[in-house]
């Protein structure tokens, strides 16, 4: 089944390039993928834990590389996110003027890369699949982008290349930190080997730093973030949805998957650095976001800012925080995809996303206004949305880290400051909502029509996901928590 998930988008992309109807094929492939993921979700054995649905082929006996797919709760969560957002992104890609086939093929390749990375339990393919998305992203921004697309495309490509090669060196070091007979790229084997021969503390520090920088660039951790807003502002909406919603989460997933269980010492050593950087994301980038005058740039920066919360959850190094981080990855993926989708629709109709020029669109586009409202409240973290549930877990997890009755330690201070980030995001999200959808309707926008009925389905899908996991976060938590329980009990 997992093999189907990875191959389906690739085969569909090849079919599209070979000449089948582009939009239809892409939609069918994306829908089939979501369906299969739901099947896996239903059949997944929550009690047994560990990796399930494992398929593997040996690729290199000399290097112990194998093409192995499998899911545990954490990767299943990521797969749900990836397939849901892919379906929404493909659905939202309408009216492609030139190279329509290539556009859908690129989207599907990005999706295949993300799915492959999340479903791989071999580090080599985990890395390789993520890189599969690099050229499609370059092409998507370069061919169909808006604004300063040339600069944005080069910037994201060079940044991500550098980041991923730093990451590659980190992974190689991780591989070589074990005694030769134990070396393997298989995550399960690595974990077992590390349980027997823990990596020496100084080595853990090196590896953690490399992974932090490598993944950090991919996640747009402050100060490696500057590619993200620019790329998302220029990218076509579907590409921004997929990249900001899914692909960027690869780095967070990697940190949760590798750094948490295998490098506890390294994580502890760099705790202060990470806390400072994530506050840079939340406070500094938060303020930068407030200063934005265009919706696309604001959304780009806000997606950078929210990474700070997820980092806070990862850095808090306990089950509650890590689970919250995983849940926020999912929630943020859905909400940012929703926001980029609506922003794309607005741009299609008005040709601009500047706050100063827009206003009163809710009259012409009541459905879009409603959906944007939902997305706004979700992004702020209003109770009832998945974002709230996960942010609460993160804050509780973070404040518990190093808690003492005498005085506040690092993570308590960080939590307090991060909570102010919620206020910041309230400011910019509500301001954007007001200046676009409310206020006086100018004559220019009176003839605008609302979203087509068919485009309302993916929006409803995303909102439903946000609400469902907002009211019933346990459905996610139950799935993810066993993974982290083994991680954190193994390291103690």
């Amino acid at each position: 089944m997992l093999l189907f998930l990875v191959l389906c988008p690739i085969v569909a992309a090849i079919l599209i390039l070979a000449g089948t109807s582009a939009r239809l094929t892409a939609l069918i492939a994306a829908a089939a993928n979501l369906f299969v993921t739901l099947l896996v979700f239903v059949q997944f054995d929550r009690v047994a834990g560990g990796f399930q649905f494992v398929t593997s082929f040996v690729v290199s006996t000399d290097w112990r590389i194998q093409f192995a797919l499998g899911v545990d709760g954490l990767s299943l969560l990521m797969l749900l996110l990836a397939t849901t957002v892919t379906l929404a992104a493909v659905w939202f890609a309408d009216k492609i003027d030139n190279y329509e086939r290539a556009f859908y093929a690129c989207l599907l390749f990005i999706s295949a890369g993300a799915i492959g990375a999340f479903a791989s339990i071999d580090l080599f393919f985990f890395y390789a699949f993520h890189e599969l998305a690099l050229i499609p992203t370059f092409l998507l921004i370069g061919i169909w982008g808006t604004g300063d697309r040339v600069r944005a495309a080069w910037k994201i490509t060079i940044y991500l290349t550098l980041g991923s090669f730093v990451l590659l060196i980190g992974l190689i070091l991780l591989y070589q930190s074990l005694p030769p007979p134990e070396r393997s790229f298989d995550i399960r084997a690595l974990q077992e080997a590390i349980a027997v021969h823990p990596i020496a503390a100084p080595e853990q520090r090196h590896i953690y730093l490399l992974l932090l920088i490598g993944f950090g660039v991919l996640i747009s951790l402050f100060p490696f973030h500057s590619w993200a807003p620019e790329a998302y502002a220029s990218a076509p909406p579907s590409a921004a949805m997929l990249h900001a919603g899914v692909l960027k989460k690869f780095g967070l997933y990697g940190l949760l998957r590798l750094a948490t269980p295998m490098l506890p010492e390294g994580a502890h050593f760099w705790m202060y650095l990470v806390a400072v950087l994530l506050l840079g994301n939340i406070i500094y980038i938060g303020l930068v976001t407030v200063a934005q005058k265009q919706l696309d740039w604001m959304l780009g920066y806000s997606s950078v800012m929210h990474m700070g919360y997820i980092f806070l959850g990862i850095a808090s190094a306990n089950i509650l925080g890590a689970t919250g981080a995983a849940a926020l990855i999912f929630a943020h993926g859905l909400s940012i995809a929703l926001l980029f989708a609506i922003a794309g629709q607005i741009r299609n109709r008005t040709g601009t996303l500047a706050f100063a020029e827009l206003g009163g669109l809710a009259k012409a586009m009541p459905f879009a206004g409603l959906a944007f409202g939902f997305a706004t409240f979700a992004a702020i973290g209003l109770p009832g949305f998945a974002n709230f549930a996960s942010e609460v877990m993160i804050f509780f997890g973070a404040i518990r880290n190093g808690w003492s009755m005498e005085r506040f330690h690092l993570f308590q201070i960080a939590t307090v400051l991060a909570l102010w980030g919620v206020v910041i995001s309230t400011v910019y999200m509500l301001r954007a909502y007001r200046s676009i959808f409310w206020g006086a309707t100018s004559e220019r926008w009176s003839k605008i029509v609302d979203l087509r009925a068919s485009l309302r389905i993916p929006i409803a899908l995303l909102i439903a996901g946000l609400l469902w996991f907002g009211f019933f976060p346990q459905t996610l938590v139950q799935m993810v928590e066993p993974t982290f329980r083994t991680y954190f009990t193994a390291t103690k």
Partner: protein
Amino acid sequence: MIAPYLEIAVLVLGITILMCETFAANIDKKTFAYAGIVGLVAVLIASFFLAGSPTQHVGAFWSFYTADALSIFFKRFMLVTTIIVLLMMIDYAPAIRKSEQRASHLGEFFSLPLLTCAGLMYLVSAIDFVFIFVSLELVTISFFVLVSFPRRNPIALEAGIKYLILGALSTAFLVYGITWIFGVTGETNLQKITAAFASGKIDNYAATFGAVLVLVGLGFKIAAVPFQIWVPDVYQGAPTPITAFLSVGSKAAGFVVLLRVLQPFLILPNIERLIVLIALLTVVYGNLAALPQTNLKRLLAYSSIAHAGYLLIGVACFDGRAVTFYLAAYLLMTLLSFAILVIVAQQTGEEISNFDGLAKRAPFLAFAMLVAMASLAGLPFTAGFFGKFFIFVSAVAQQQTALVVVGIVTVACGFYYYLKVVRAMYWPARNASLSVAGGQPSPNNNAIAVSTLSRAVIILLIAATILFGVYPQPILNALKH
């Protein structure tokens, strides 16, 4: 059958074709190319039915010729390279005809690569300095002719002169180095030299001097900095198939010889540091100098310097397996890109801007070029990535921090200039509005015809690039026997 028959067969084939050219002038010249290809394929197949080299009866011959796994692998490597180069030459022949105004000499054009191929095959088997020198001359002299083959073309002539003078100079360095080493040890056989060096009864300064001179000579062949000056001009001026041959065959042979001579040299002090230094300079220079290039052939010349740098990182870490895999990947992706360049250049030109909008004109060629560029840049799921991966693994294992750091930065540079080509092919053309306004279809808008044979070769190369990018084990196994 034993290994030396392979070279003999190739030599006989080459000479026969040359004779036919002289005595049967009426044959269609392309027949020679096809004959050469068929012959080489037969030799390639024969290479899979070899008996090993004799172990007991060691005569004079086997003291300078070896048929170990490495040399057998690279003999096949050279055969495959030559076959693909000949196929490219068939596509390129019209350009030669145009410049010569008569179809003469094409037979020579098709037979000389066979002689080069024999030389390359000898070179990868050579374990004696005298034999290394002789086979290197066979290679170099036939390349002198091939590089300046379109003799009415001043650029090709300039390239030929540059290659001739610098080639002769590097040979002089090599011979001088060999004499010093012979003077110190009294031996030319590499194993005996190793033993003499290891005995500690030699003059280390003199030996190091000789070793450095030999490395200078080889540095010219593999285009390592600071001996790379000739590369861009010669690569750009030579006929494109010959450029491909130079950059794959000649370079690979140079690296095999380098791996063999390093065996004794590494006993000497400071040689390792020297190699690390050269590797650093080569990756940095190759990648930085490639950044501003606008001519694709020249870009590929600089990129070949950059790849020599990555290969030298592997050499500096003594990882013969990584170097071999990298060379195999390099063969696939370089020949793929040159094969497409030959076809596209016939219609428009060799500038990167001539590739503008190729995705519209020739989606197949554009996709093939995309794969080649992705592999050269080192994206996963292509052979090029595994090449870089193995090199980086051994550099990390040897704790060559400087090499790793510089390697990462330069790989990112590489993405920039390789993706420049992708950008030209796929992004909307920069002058699209102009050509629409002018109302005339520019020559860039016509579809490009690709012969069935070339198409098949390109498909094979793409398939191999992707296959070895996912499943590298066959190449690793080939070295184990």
